C-alpha cells in the first residue's frame, strides 16, 4: 500500500511538473502578448489571447493543486475579461500591472518547487491596484473563506448555470501510454466535473499475439453532464491533446453562443484542432537530460564507427569494407539528425528581452523600440542556454549608456524613440548574433584615455579603433562617469567576453559617434560533434574544423627558401602568413621535404597552418580536456580516433591570436627570430616583407 501511495504521489508529481513547465511557457507567451498589446491597445485578438492564457493558468493551476496561483491569476483574468467586454481600457497601467502579476505568478511557481519566496506584500499591492481599476473585489488573502472557496470551485471548471450534456469521443494514440498519460486518470478527472457515463469500444483491440502490450487500443465514448465550460473539459486533456484523437460536442439544444463567448471557438472548431494534431507531426516533450544522453551515445557510436572504418581499411575484405561504409553513412545521418534535434530557434531568447527593454525604458525615462531579425535562426540548445546573460549585459549597457534621453535625441536630430535591433544569421558553421542601437555610440577617445590610465596601453600606442574597443572587455573597465544600478561598474563586459569565448565564440564591437553601436557575437552552431579535417604532425594528430578551412596547398623546401626565412607563402598573388604546428607545440621532429598548408579563415584574417599530411574528413566528437587543461585556449577539446589515438581539436582563431600575443610580448628578442610573420606591435595588422 505504501508503494501504491508512493506511485500515486509520483503520478501527481509528474502532473505538477508538467503543469509547471506548461505554465512557464504560457507566461513567456503571455508576456510577449502583453508587450505587443502595449503598442496596439485596441487589438481585441491580443486581449483575447491574454485572457485565454490567464484562464488556462488559472484552470490548470486549480486542477493540479496550485490554488494560490489559481486564486491570484483569477484576479488578473477578471481584469482582462472586463477589457474583453469593453468595460475596461487596456491601459498602460493595466498592462504594467499584468506584467508585474506575471512575475509574481512565476515567483509562486518557483516557490512551489522550493526556489525562493514569492513577495506577498507586492502581490497584495497588485491586487489592490487591480481592484481599483476594475472596481471588483479581488481574491486576495483578506477575502472570506466562503467566497474564496466558491470562486476556487468555479475556477476548477464548474461555473454557475444549467448543466449541459457533452459527448466526448476519445481514442488514445499509440504512444500515449508510454508518454505517461493513463486514460484512467483522465476519466477520473472528468468525473470530478459532473456525471460521467463511459462506454468502451474494444473493436480495435488486436489478438494477444499481435498486441503491443504498452499501447492502448481501447477507445471511449463518454457522456458528461456538467456545468463546466468546454474549456474546463478540454483542460482535462491538456497534456494528452497531441497524443490522441479527441472530439468534444455539446448535445441537445445548442448553447453555442455561450460556448463561443466563453472560449472563443466552437466545439466543432476544437474537434478539428484536435484532429489536426493527430494528422500532423505531433510534438513530444523530452527531458533535456535524455537528449544529452542521446547525443552522447551518438558520439560514442561515431567513435566506434571510426574504429570499424580503421579496421576495415586494414583487413582488405570487400564485405567488411561495404558494411563499414554503410555504417559510416548511417552514423553520419544519425549524427546530423541528433544534432538537429538539439537545435532551437533563438526566438524565445530574443523575445524575452522585450520585457527587459520595456521595464528599463520605463525606469530610465527613455523611449526604445525593439526590432528582431532572424528569430528563426537555430542554434545548439547548449549555446542558447549560455547566451541569455551575455545578451542581457549588452542590452543593459546599450539602454544605460548608448541610448540617449528623448530630449537629447531630438536635439541631435534623431527620432525621440530609439531603436535596439537584435539580429541572428547563419554564417558557415557559425551563427552571428548582433545587438545594435542607434544611440550616441562609443567615445573612442574616452575609452583610449581610460586604457592609458589603467595601464592597459601605452600613451603613444598606435591602435586601430577596433583594437581600442577591445579594451572595453578588460575586467573592471568602465568609462561611465556615473555608476548606475544597470551598468557602469565595469562588471559585465569582461564576463560577456569570457562567456562567449567559453562557447568557442568571439565578440567584436563597431561604433560610430552619434550613430550607434553594434556588438557582434560569432558563435559555433554546435558544441558536440563537428565535421573536422584530420591532419598529422610527426606522431601527433590534430583536427581542424572543416567550416574554417579554405584550401590546402603544398609547401616545399623551395617555397621556404624563397620566402627568405619569413613564414609566409604566396597563394595566387596573396601573401598568407603561416604557423608551423610543430613549432607552436615545440615538437622535435625533422624537417620534411614537402609539407601541407591548411589555409584557414580566422578572426584575424587568412592564416596557414603547416602540417605533415592531411589524412581526411573526420566526424569529430569533441570531448572536454578536463579541468587541468581548461586554460589551454587554443584547443577546443580532444577526440578519439579509430585507432585509439587522441587528436587535439584546434581553435584556429585562438591559435592565431595566441601567436600574435606571443609575438607582441617578445618584442625584446631578435625580430627575425621572434616575429617571422612580421606582425607589428600595433596589433593584428600585418605587413609582409617580400
Amino acid at each position, binding site marked *: *500500500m505504501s*508503494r*501504491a501511495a508512493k*506511485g*500515486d504521489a509520483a503520478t501527481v508529481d509528474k502532473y505538477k511538473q508538467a503543469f509547471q513547465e506548461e505554465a512557464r511557457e504560457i507566461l513567456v507567451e503571455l508576456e510577449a502578448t502583453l508587450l505587443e498589446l502595449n503598442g496596439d491597445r485596441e487589438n481585441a485578438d491580443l486581449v483575447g489571447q491574454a485572457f485565454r492564457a490567464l484562464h488556462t493558468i488559472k484552470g490548470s493551476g486549480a486542477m493540479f493543486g496550485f490554488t494560490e496561483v489559481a486564486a491570484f491569476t483569477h484576479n488578473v483574468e477578471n481584469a482582462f475579461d472586463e477589457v474583453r467586454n469593453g468595460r475596461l481600457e487596456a491601459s498602460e497601467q493595466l498592462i504594467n500591472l499584468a506584467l508585474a502579476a506575471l512575475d509574481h505568478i512565476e515567483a509562486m511557481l518557483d516557490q512551489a518547487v522550493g526556489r525562493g519566496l514569492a513577495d506577498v506584500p507586492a502581490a497584495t499591492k497588485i491586487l489592490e491596484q487591480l481592484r481599483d481599476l476594475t472596481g471588483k473585489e479581488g481574491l486576495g488573502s483578506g477575502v472570506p473563506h466562503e467566497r474564496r472557496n466558491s470562486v476556487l470551485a468555479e475556477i476548477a471548471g464548474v461555473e454557475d448555470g444549467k448543466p449541459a450534456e457533452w459527448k466526448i469521443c476519445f481514442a*488514445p494514440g499509440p504512444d500515449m*501510454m*508510454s508518454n505517461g498519460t*493513463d*486514460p*484512467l486518470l483522465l*476519466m*477520473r478527472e472528468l*468525473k470530478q466535473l459532473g456525471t460521467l457515463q*463511459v*462506454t*468502451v469500444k*474494444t473493436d480495435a*483491440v488486436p*489478438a*494477444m*499475439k499481435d*498486441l503491443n*502490450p*504498452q*499501447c*492502448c*487500443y*481501447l477507445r*471511449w465514448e463518454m457522456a458528461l453532464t456538467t456545468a463546466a465550460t468546454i474549456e474546463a473539459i478540454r483542460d482535462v486533456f491538456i497534456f494528452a491533446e497531441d497524443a490522441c484523437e479527441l472530439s468534444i460536442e455539446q448535445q441537445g439544444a445548442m448553447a453555442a453562443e455561450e460556448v463561443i463567448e466563453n472560449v472563443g471557438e466552437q466545439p466543432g472548431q476544437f474537434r478539428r484542432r484536435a484532429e489536426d494534431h493527430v494528422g500532423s507531426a505531433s510534438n513530444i516533450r523530452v527531458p533535456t537530460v535524455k537528449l544529452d544522453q542521446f547525443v552522447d551515445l551518438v558520439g560514442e557510436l561515431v567513435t566506434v564507427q571510426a574504429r570499424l572504418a580503421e579496421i576495415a581499411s586494414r583487413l582488405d575484405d570487400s564485405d567488411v569494407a561495404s558494411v563499414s561504409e554503410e555504417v559510416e553513412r548511417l552514423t553520419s545521418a544519425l549524427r546530423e539528425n541528433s544534432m538537429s534535434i538539439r537545435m532551437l530557434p533563438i526566438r524565445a531568447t530574443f523575445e524575452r528581452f522585450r520585457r527587459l527593454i520595456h521595464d528599463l525604458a520605463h525606469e530610465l525615462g527613455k523611449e526604445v523600440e525593439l526590432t528582431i531579425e532572424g528569430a528563426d535562426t537555430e542554434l545548439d540548445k547548449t549555446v542558447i542556454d549560455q547566451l541569455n546573460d551575455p545578451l542581457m549585459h549588452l542590452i543593459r549597457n546599450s539602454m544605460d549608456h548608448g541610448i540617449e534621453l528623448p530630449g537629447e535625441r531630438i536635439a541631435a536630430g534623431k527620432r525621440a524613440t530609439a531603436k535596439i535591433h537584435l539580429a541572428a544569421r547563419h554564417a558557415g558553421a557559425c551563427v552571428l548574433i548582433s545587438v545594435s542601437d542607434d544611440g550616441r555610440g562609443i567615445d573612442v577617445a574616452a575609452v583610449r584615455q581610460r586604457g592609458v590610465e589603467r595601464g592597459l596601453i601605452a600613451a603613444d600606442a598606435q591602435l586601430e579603433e577596433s583594437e581600442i574597443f577591445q579594451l572595453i572587455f578588460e575586467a573592471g573597465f568602465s568609462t561611465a562617469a556615473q555608476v548606475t544600478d544597470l551598468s557602469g561598474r565595469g562588471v559585465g563586459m569582461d564576463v560577456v567576453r569570457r562567456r562567449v569565448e567559453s562557447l568557442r565564440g568571439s565578440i567584436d564591437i563597431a561604433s560610430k559617434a552619434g550613430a550607434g553601436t553594434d556588438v557582434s557575437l560569432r558563435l559555433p552552431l554546435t558544441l558536440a560533434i563537428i565535421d573536422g579535417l584530420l591532419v598529422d604532425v610527426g606522431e601527433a594528430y590534430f583536427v581542424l574544423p572543416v567550416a574554417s578551412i579554405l584550401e590546402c596547398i603544398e609547401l616545399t623546401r623551395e617555397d621556404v627558401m624563397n620566402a627568405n626565412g619569413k613564414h609566409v607563402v604566396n597563394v595566387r598573388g596573396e601573401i598568407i602568413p603561416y604557423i608551423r604546428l610543430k613549432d607552436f607545440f615545440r615538437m622535435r621532429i625533422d624537417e620534411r621535404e614537402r609539407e601541407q598548408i591548411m589555409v584557414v579563415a580566422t578572426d584575424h584574417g587568412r592564416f596557414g597552418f603547416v602540417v605533415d599530411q592531411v589524412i581526411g574528413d573526420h566526424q569529430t566528437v569533441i570531448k572536454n580536456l578536463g579541468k587541468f587543461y581548461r586554460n589551454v585556449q587554443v584547443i577546443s577539446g580532444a577526440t578519439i580516433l579509430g585507432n585509439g589515438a587522441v587528436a587535439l581539436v584546434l581553435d584556429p582563431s585562438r591559435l592565431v591570436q595566441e601567436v600574435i600575443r606571443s609575438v607582441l610580448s617578445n618584442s625584446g628578442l631578435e625580430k627575425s627570430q621572434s616575429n617571422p610573420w612580421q606582425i607589428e606591435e600595433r596589433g593584428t595588422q600585418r605587413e609582409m616583407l617580400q
Partner: protein
Amino acid sequence: MTIHVKDSKAGYGLRLEGEAGIEDAIELREALVAGLGSGRGLNVHLGAMTRADVTVLQLLWVARREASHGGTAFRIEGEVRPEIRSAFEEVGLDTFVAEAAHMVEAQ
C-alpha cells in the same frame, strides 16, 4: 508488480502482486500467453494487485476474450480489491470481473 506462476493439473495459475503498470505489461503478456497456451485453463489471482493502469486492464480483458474464443477456462481468483474493481468500472470494463466468474461457471 511480481508475477507468481503456478502450473498444476488444476490449471495454469498467475498471481499478480503489487502495483501493475505499463512497465510490467510485456512480462504480463508473456505470462498470459503461456497460461492460455497451457490448455488447462487460466486462473488469475488478483487479490494482491494494488494498482492497475489501462495497459494491464486491457491485457486482462484480452486474455479473457481469447480464453472465451478458444473455449479455455478463465477464472479470476482472490478478492479483487475495490480500487482494482473500480478501475475496471471507470474505463467501462465494469463487467470484466463478473463475466470472468460467469465464464468459469459455464465451463
